[in-house]
């Protein structure tokens, strides 16, 4: 009686059916669980990036001349910063992606990129560590353009620091910067020189030509941008300087209209032409090398604005 013979595996059909379908269900369950964990990780990291974005709001200095703070994370974190001056014209935008170490002690899936359009964050492209050192400082060209926010996670050794930078660092109480002459100082070495010099420093600042050599690239600075040039990658620096210049052009247009409005109360201003020149110069701005000419023009505007009676100042 062939009919009563069991199947090849010696198992009735209903058992085989249950095992195959059970295995399929189990596979689906594991697949969805793994996916769910990954999605949750991405979601959590995106939320953290959004919270970081909100956290940076109080760093707008307002009337203060600078603010600083330290941020400590429970776990080692990695934040990927990027900048695009062409997206969201004319202001450009930065994005921030966050991830932290998971149970396997490796960095998990990064969250989605969170865009930041109203801030100028100068940092390395990857900020990694348990502690963040954040400070903000205003940038003028010649009026206040915006605050620049500097984020770093490393320690720095400043050699031969100029007096004004030393005072600023002390005032802001930046604990990750050691101003020293001790060559054993542990951290990224930053050397200030009045002339070009060969040295083993990671970052070389020429205070005379206002240039910073970093990662075999040279960037130019004016005013407080020196901090941005030291603490950020040359790519992020150039992008943010372009964004800042675009904002200076927008503000120049606002001030040009304000001059027209001030004429109704008899306040005349001679800076209208120079503000228009500033806007035109910024249109051709493609690298920090052009900062010098813009700075010269802005000094001229500032002198004229200071010369008018106090009630008629444009800014």
């Amino acid at each position, binding site marked *: 009686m062939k009919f009563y013979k069991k199947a090849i595996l010696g198992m009735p059909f209903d058992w085989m059916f249950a095992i195959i379908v059970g295995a399929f269900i189990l596979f689906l369950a594991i697949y969805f669980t793994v996916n769910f964990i990954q999605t949750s990780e991405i979601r959590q990291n995106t*939320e953290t990036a959004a919270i970081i974005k909100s956290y940076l709001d*109080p760093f707008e200095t307002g*009337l203060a001349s600078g603010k600083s703070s330290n941020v400590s994370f429970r776990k080692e974190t990695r934040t990927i910063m990027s900048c695009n001056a062409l997206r969201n014209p004319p202001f450009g935008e930065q994005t921030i992606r966050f991830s932290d170490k998971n149970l396997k002690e490796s960095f998990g899936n990064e969250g989605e990129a969170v865009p930041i359009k109203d801030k100028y964050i100068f940092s390395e492209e990857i900020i990694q560590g348990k502690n963040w050192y954040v400070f903000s400082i205003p940038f003028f060209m010649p009026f206040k353009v915006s605050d620049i926010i500097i984020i770093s996670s490393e320690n720095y050794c400043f050699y031969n620091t100029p007096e004004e930078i030393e005072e600023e660092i002390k005032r802001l109480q930046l604990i990750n910067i050691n101003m020293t002459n001790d060559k054993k100082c542990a951290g990224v070495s930053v050397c200030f020189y009045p002339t070009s010099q060969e040295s083993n420093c990671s970052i070389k600042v020429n205070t005379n030509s206002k240039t910073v050599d970093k990662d075999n690239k040279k960037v130019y600075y004016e005013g407080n941008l020196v901090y941005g040039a030291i603490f950020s990658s040359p790519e992020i620096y150039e992008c943010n300087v372009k964004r800042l210049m675009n904002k200076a052009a927008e503000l120049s*247009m606002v001030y040009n209209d304000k001059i027209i409005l*001030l004429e109704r*109360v008899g306040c005349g201003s001679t800076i209208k032409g120079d503000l228009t020149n500033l806007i035109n110069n910024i249109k051709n701005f493609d690298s920090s090398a052009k900062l010098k000419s813009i700075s010269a023009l802005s000094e001229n505007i500032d002198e004229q604005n200071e010369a008018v*009676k106090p009630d008629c100042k444009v800014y």
Partner: protein
Amino acid sequence: MENQKNKMIKKSQIKIQEMAFMLVAVFIFFSLVLLFGFSVSYQNIIENANRINEERTLSAITNLANSPEFSCTGSRDNCVDADKVAAILNKQNYEKFWPYSSLEIIKINVVNKTEKELISCTFANYPNCDNFLIYKKNVENERTISSFVALCRKDLLNGAVYEKCEIAKFIAGTELEEVK
């Protein structure tokens, strides 16, 4: 014998059908549980996004008056330069800069005027107006947060330039995502 064989075939078929139905039911049950889990999780994402956006608007609006686009000449805290605001009314670009869905400044010393009677400011009618609508994105669901500021402008008194200040409300809107 043939009868017994048919009986066994029928019994086996019923068993397989029972198991198939059971497995399909279990599958559907877990799918529904997963679907429910995802919908709860999705709702949480939207709630968290709204909370973060609102918190951001609240923390940012206090600093907005001191930003270069609004701050008064001579560095005074919480003071908005009305001349600058009137100039900004022409600039559409700022809509892409600030993270708010709307931005408006309303003078609050406009007594005996309903909201509809307020005169909207333009570059042409300034300063004879009441509210500055800097921009308004057409969003479906918005929550506004306001802060009081001093709204100052240059004016003339007996031929001399002086600064005239009024109290105003700085209103910023946040777009809220709806849970559908």
